[in-house]
C-alpha cells in the first residue's frame, strides 16, 4: 500500500538561514504584539505588515520574477509560511492572494491580468477575497445560483455570496458563478476577477462571528456590471479551475497551526512545574505536531516535484483539523483556569478566543464530510 505513503521532504530543505532571517524580522516587528492578537492566527489584518514582509521578498516567493516574484521554491515558501503562522503574525491582507489567487491568475489569467495584478500582490499591496459560498450552497458548489449574464462589453452579475472573509477591506474578489445553464451539475460555471474598489452596485454587509468579530461578510451583486476583461480563465471552465485552486488551499501549515497561540500559552504556564501527566500530554501534542509538520512538508515537496498528492493533502488536512480543534479541550484537561474574553490574563483571553474560533476552522476549504469523501475515493472505495 503505497497509496498513503508520504515521501520524506527532500534533504537540504530546512533552509535554516532563511528561517533565521524570518525569525529575526518577526521578533522585531511583533515585539509588542500580544498573545490575544496572535491568537487570531492568519485572520489578523495589517496592510502595513504585509507590505513590510513583501519588501523582504517573502510575498509571491514562488511567482516568476517577471511578475515581481522571487522564483523560489515551494519549500522555501513553506518555511516562511510556517514561521508566520507559528508567530501568529497578521497576514490575512496578503495571504489569500499569495496562496491561491496569485497562482490562479498566473495559471489562467490573460497577459494583461498578470501584468496588472500579480506584481502588486507580490508587493503585498493587494488583499483578495473569495466569492464562493452562497446562502443555499454551503459545501455544495453545484448549487451555486449567482449568475453572470453576458451583455454589451461585459457581464451583469446578480446573486448573493456569504461567508466572504474580509470582503469589507479587500481590493479584489475572485468570484465563482454561473455563466450558463447546464444539465451537467458542474457545467456552465466561470470565475471573475472583481475590482471591489472600482465596481458599483456591490453591497457588502458584515456577519458577526462567535467571537463577536467581523471577518465574514455577505456580498450582494445587484445588476453589477463587470467588463469583459474581468473574466478569469475560460468561460464555462470555472468548476475545474476551482478544483485545482482548492488544491493550493489544502495541506499547508495553516491546516494545523490555527490554535498555536493557545499551545504557546499553555506551555508557558506549564514550563516550570509540570506534573508527569502534563508532560505526557505535552509530549503527545509534540508528537502529533512533529508528524503533521513532516507530512505537510512532504506534500509541499511532492507539489514542488510536480506530483499530484491530492490524497495526501486531504489526509493532512483531516488530521490537522482534528489536531487544531482539540487544543482547547487539551488545555482544559491540564489546567483549571476559566476562559475570560478580552481579560488581562493572556492564557484566559487566548483560551476564550480560541474556543470561539474553533467551529470556524472546519468552514474553510471543505467540511470534514467532503474531505473524508475525497479520502475514501482516493483509497479506492467503489
Amino acid at each position, binding site marked *: 500500500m503505497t497509496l498513503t505513503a508520504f515521501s520524506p521532504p527532500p534533504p537540504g530543505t530546512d533552509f535554516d538561514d532563511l528561517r533565521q532571517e524570518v525569525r529575526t524580522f518577526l521578533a522585531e516587528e511583533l515585539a509588542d504584539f500580544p498573545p490575544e492578537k496572535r491568537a487570531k492566527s492568519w485572520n489578523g489584518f495589517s496592510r502595513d505588515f504585509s507590505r513590510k514582509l513583501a519588501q523582504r521578498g517573502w510575498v509571491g516567493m514562488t511567482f516568476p520574477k517577471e511578475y515581481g516574484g522571487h522564483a523560489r521554491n515551494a519549500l522555501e515558501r513553506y518555511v516562511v509560511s510556517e514561521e508566520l503562522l507559528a508567530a501568529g503574525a497578521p497576514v490575512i491582507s496578503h495571504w489569500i492572494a499569495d496562496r491561491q489567487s496569485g497562482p490562479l491568475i498566473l495559471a489562467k489569467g490573460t497577459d494583461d491580468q498578470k501584468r496588472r495584478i500579480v506584481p502588486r500582490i507580490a508587493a503585498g499591496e493587494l488583499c483578495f477575497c473569495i466569492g464562493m459560498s452562497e446562502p443555499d450552497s*454551503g459545501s455544495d458548489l453545484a448549487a451555486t445560483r449567482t449568475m453572470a449574464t453576458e451583455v454589451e462589453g461585459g457581464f451583469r452579475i446578480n446573486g448573493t455570496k456569504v461567508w466572504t472573509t474580509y470582503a469589507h477591506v479587500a481590493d479584489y474578489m475572485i468570484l465563482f458563478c454561473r455563466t450558463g445553464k447546464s444539465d451537467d451539475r458542474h457545467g456552465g460555471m466561470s470565475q471573475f476577477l472583481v475590482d471591489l474598489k472600482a465596481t458599483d452596485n456591490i453591497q457588502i454587509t458584515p456577519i458577526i462571528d462567535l467571537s463577536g468579530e467581523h471577518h465574514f461578510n455577505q456580498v450582494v451583486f445587484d445588476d453589477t456590471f463587470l467588463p469583459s476583461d474581468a473574466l478569469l480563465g475560460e468561460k464555462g471552465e470555472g468548476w475545474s479551475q476551482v478544483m485545482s485552486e482548492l488544491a493550493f488551499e489544502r495541506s499547508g501549515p495553516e491546516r494545523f497551526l490555527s490554535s498555536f497561540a493557545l499551545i504557546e500559552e499553555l506551555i508557558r504556564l506549564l514550563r516550570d512545574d509540570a506534573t508527569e501527566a502534563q508532560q505526557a500530554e505535552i509530549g503527545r501534542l509534540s508528537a502529533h505536531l512533529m508528524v503533521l509538520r513532516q507530512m505537510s512538508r512532504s506534500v509541499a515537496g511532492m507539489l514542488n516535484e510536480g506530483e499530484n498528492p491530492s490524497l495526501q493533502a486531504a489526509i493532512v488536512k483531516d488530521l490537522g483539523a482534528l489536531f487544531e480543534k482539540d487544543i482547547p479541550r487539551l488545555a*482544559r*484537561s491540564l*489546567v*483549571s483556569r476559566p476562559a475570560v474574553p478580552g481579560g488581562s490574563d493572556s492564557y484566559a483571553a487566548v483560551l476564550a478566543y480560541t*474556543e470561539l474560533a474553533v467551529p*470556524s476552522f472546519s468552514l474553510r476549504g471543505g467540511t470534514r*464530510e467532503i474531505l473524508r469523501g475525497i479520502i475514501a475515493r482516493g483509497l479506492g472505495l467503489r
Partner: protein
Amino acid sequence: MESMIHDMAERLFRDHVTHRMREDAASGQCPEALWTQIEEAGLTMALVPEDAGGFGVPPAEALGLLRIAGAHGLPLPLAETLIANAVLATANMALPGGRLTIAEGEALRLEQRGKRVHASGHLTLVPFARWASLIVTIAVLDGTDHVLSLPVKVLNVAPAQDLAGMPRDDIKLDHTLAETDAVPLPRPMGGMRQLGALIRSLAAAGAMETILEMSIQYANDRVQFGRPIGKFQAIQHNLATMAGETAASRTAAEMAAGSYDTPAFALTVAAAKARAGEAAEKVGALAHQIHGAIGYTQEHALHHFTKRIWGWRDDFGTELDWTRELGRAALSSPHDTFWHFITDSAAKGAPA
C-alpha cells in the same frame, strides 16, 4: 413529570424570551420587564419553604425550572436568585425580593469584630453581580458556615463577561457587615460552589435539549446534494451522539437535583457538573458542524446557546475541578470495592 409550575414557566419563557432579548442582554442590557413577570409569577421563591413564600413543591421540581430557563436561554439571574433565596431562608434571613446572585465564598476571610463580622478577599466570576441588589455567599467563621448577604450598592464591582458576553463580575471585599447580614447556617447545605454547579448543570441540560432540537430541525430542512442533510449517515451519527450527551447531562443534573439537601448531593453534583461540561463541548461542536457557517453568526440562536453552555463550563468549578474532587472521593473511599462506592454515591431519592 407533570408540573404546574413547569408549565407556567414554559409558557412565560416561550412567549417572552426572544432572540433579540438574548442579544441585547449579551451586550449589557437587562430585560427588566420580563424580570418583573418572573418575580410576579413567584418563580424566584420556588425553592424556599411554603411558609416563607414558596410553592411547597419538592426541591427537584422547583429546580426543574432552571432546566426550562436554560432551554429558553433566559438571560436573567433566575437560577441565582432561586438559590440565594433558599439559602437566606435556611438561615432565617430576610428575603428582600428583586434580583439576587450568589458567589463562591470559600476564599473569603471572616473575622469577628465585636458583634459584627468583617469580610475580606475576592469574589471572582460572580454572575450578574451588576444586575443584582444582593450577593449571597457562604463562608466559614470559626469552623461554622455563615451566610453573608452583601448589598451590591456598597461594593465595588469590576465588570467582566463570560464567553457568551453575560455579566460575570469581580468584587474586592473589605467590609464590616451589618449584624443581620452574616448569620450562621443552622445546617450544612453544600457550599455555594456546589449549589452553583447544580444550577449550571440544569441550565446546560436544558440548553443542550434546545440545541439538539434546533439541529434536528435544521438537518430535516436543509437540502444539500439534492437531499436533506439529515439523510446522511454522518449527520445522523452526529445527532445520535448529541442526543446521548444531552440525555446523559439531563439525567446527571436531575440526579443531583433529586439529592439536593441529602448526603448524596456532594458527589452527584460533582458528577453532574463534570458531565455537563464534557457534553457541552461535544454538543456545541457537533451542532456547529451540522449547521455549518449559518449557526456561527450572531443572527442565529445557536450562536447564543452554544456560547452560554460553553461559558457555564467555567462557572462554579471546571470539569477538571469536579472530576478531581470526585476521583479523590472514589480513591479514598472506605468501601471494599469501587463498585460499592458507585452504588453508594447514587441519589437515593429525596427524603420523605
